[in-house]
């Protein structure tokens, strides 16, 4: 029994089984859905091993080069690594968090169903790590974690809805993304500093940056650049003597960089399989219990409404990220390597919302402030993750940082 509840792969498989049976799916669908969910979890774990190898090497190189900890914010990486210690808790908080979401939507005015499954999973993991480091465990951990998760799953879309309505011109779509606090700040700042009349969509922006939507490319590119820059400062000698077993340091760095991207791709494939069964089940059940609820979707859902703002927001956010490399050590914080993926998706969303509230100036300023947030918040969060804070990677989006930091502070009071 302990092994069933303690093996995360089996746990999520059971959830999928339950969800499929509840939807009265055919035997074929129930069997294949359950098996695929379990397999998804095991694929995720396999991806974790690929990532840790490369991250470990990056960490060593960064330390040698700059005498400070360099951290790569990548949700897939930190969550995959965390499954070793918090796998079962993550799965439980995720499932009961979804139940809590449905209950909150049913009984409060916040009628949102949070459908971005991978973010639900990531937040469940953050809560498991922070609450556990703060001293909770067992049933209490799961109950507290699930209530907090379910609550944020309805509040996060709710705080953004006034802005999202301006973006889409309707009330059908809500945003379900745990960068929401960053976007709220972006929208707020844009409202007061921008000029709504001058939209980003009136200017000509090159479409050539569109290829960054392919996350395999973005991650490979970021990591390759990061590894090269760090390798040069680390020095050929150190790399070839201590790390690469003699292989040329530039070639070695390139392979490690793409190995990281490969690991992320594997983790994503696993996550896709897990939520491929769980999210439709969740939606099916939610539709029956809360029929007039609004679906809260992943941030790309709002990108088509302002494609130029996407690029402008990303660039502005990324510049803030690069600036932060120099600002963070001044505050004694670890250096958060600006990731193309968080700055692309979060910067883009901040840009779209910033544009809706304050035109092109709003998009640029809003996304810039957001970029600073996602550079500083992960750095401040790091020591609160306990052992997980030493993995050279961490959570990227704003909400993980804010909730993690607030929770740790609150728990210290007890």
């Amino acid at each position, binding site marked *: 029994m302990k092994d069933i509840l303690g093996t995360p792969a089996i746990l999520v498989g059971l959830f999928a089984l339950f969800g499929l049976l509840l939807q009265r799916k055919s035997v074929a669908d129930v069997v294949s859905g359950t098996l695929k969910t379990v397999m998804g979890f095991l694929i995720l774990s396999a991806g974790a091993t690929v990532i840790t190898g490369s991250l470990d090497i990056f960490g060593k190189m960064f330390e040698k080069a700059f005498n400070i900890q360099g951290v790569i914010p990548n949700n897939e990486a930190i969550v995959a690594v965390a499954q070793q210690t918090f796998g079962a808790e993550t799965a439980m908080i995720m499932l009961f968090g979804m139940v809590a979401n449905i209950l909150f939507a049913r009984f409060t005015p916040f009628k949102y169903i949070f*459908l*971005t*499954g*991978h973010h639900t999973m990531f937040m469940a993991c953050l809560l498991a790590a922070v609450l556990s480091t703060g001293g909770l465990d067992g049933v209490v951990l799961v109950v507290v974690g699930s209530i907090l998760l379910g609550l944020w799953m309805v509040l996060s879309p709710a705080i953004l809805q006034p802005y999202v309505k301006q973006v*889409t011109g309707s009330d*059908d*779509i809500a945003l*379900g993304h745990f960068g929401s606090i960053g976007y709220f700040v972006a929208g707020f700042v844009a409202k007061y500093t921008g000029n709504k009349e001058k939209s980003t969509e009136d200017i000509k922006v090159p*479409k050539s940056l*569109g*290829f960054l*939507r*392919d*996350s*395999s*490319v973005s991650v490979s590119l970021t990591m390759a650049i990061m590894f090269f820059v760090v390798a040069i400062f680390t020095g050929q000698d150190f790399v070839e003597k201590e790390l690469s077993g003699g292989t040329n340091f530039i070639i070695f760095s390139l392979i490690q960089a793409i190995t990281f991207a490969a690991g992320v*791709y594997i983790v*994503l*494939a696993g*996550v*896709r399989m897990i*939520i*491929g069964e769980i*999210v*439709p089940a969740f*939606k099916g059940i939610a539709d029956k219990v809360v029929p007039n609820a609004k*679906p809260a*979707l*992943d941030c*790309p*859902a709002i*990108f*088509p*409404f302002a*494609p130029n703002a*996407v690029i402008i927001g990303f660039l502005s956010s990324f510049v803030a990220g690069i600036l932060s490399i120099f600002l963070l050590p001044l505050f004694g914080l670890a250096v958060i390597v600006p990731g193309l993926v968080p700055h692309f*998706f979060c910067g883009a969303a901040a840009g779209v919302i910033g544009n809706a509230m304050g035109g092109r100036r709003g998009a640029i300023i809003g996304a810039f402030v957001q970029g600073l947030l996602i550079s500083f918040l992960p750095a401040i969060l790091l020591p609160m993750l306990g052992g997980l804070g030493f993995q050279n990677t961490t959570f990227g989006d704003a909400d993980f940082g804010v909730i993690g930091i607030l929770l740790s502070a609150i728990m210290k009071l007890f």
Partner: protein
Amino acid sequence: MKILAVCGNGLGSSMMLAINIKKVIGTLGITADVSNTDLASSKTETADYYIGSPEIMEQLSDGKRKTISIKNLLSLPEIEEALTKYINA
């Protein structure tokens, strides 16, 4: 017939789109196998139609693939209109 919904990560957006397409094709009398994936994987996966947001479809259109752009993936009317235009024409 195979319809492939595509988004950047193959997670949220394409899954929602796939769910909505399944809802619509029944009423239009189209029988198709609908699935979803990410941009990188979609390049090697064969399908009769690729469907997703305009920027993603731009990455896929090479003259040989049949792509359908959807701006609001939650709008069943928009999906219905697009499918009728391209498939049932």
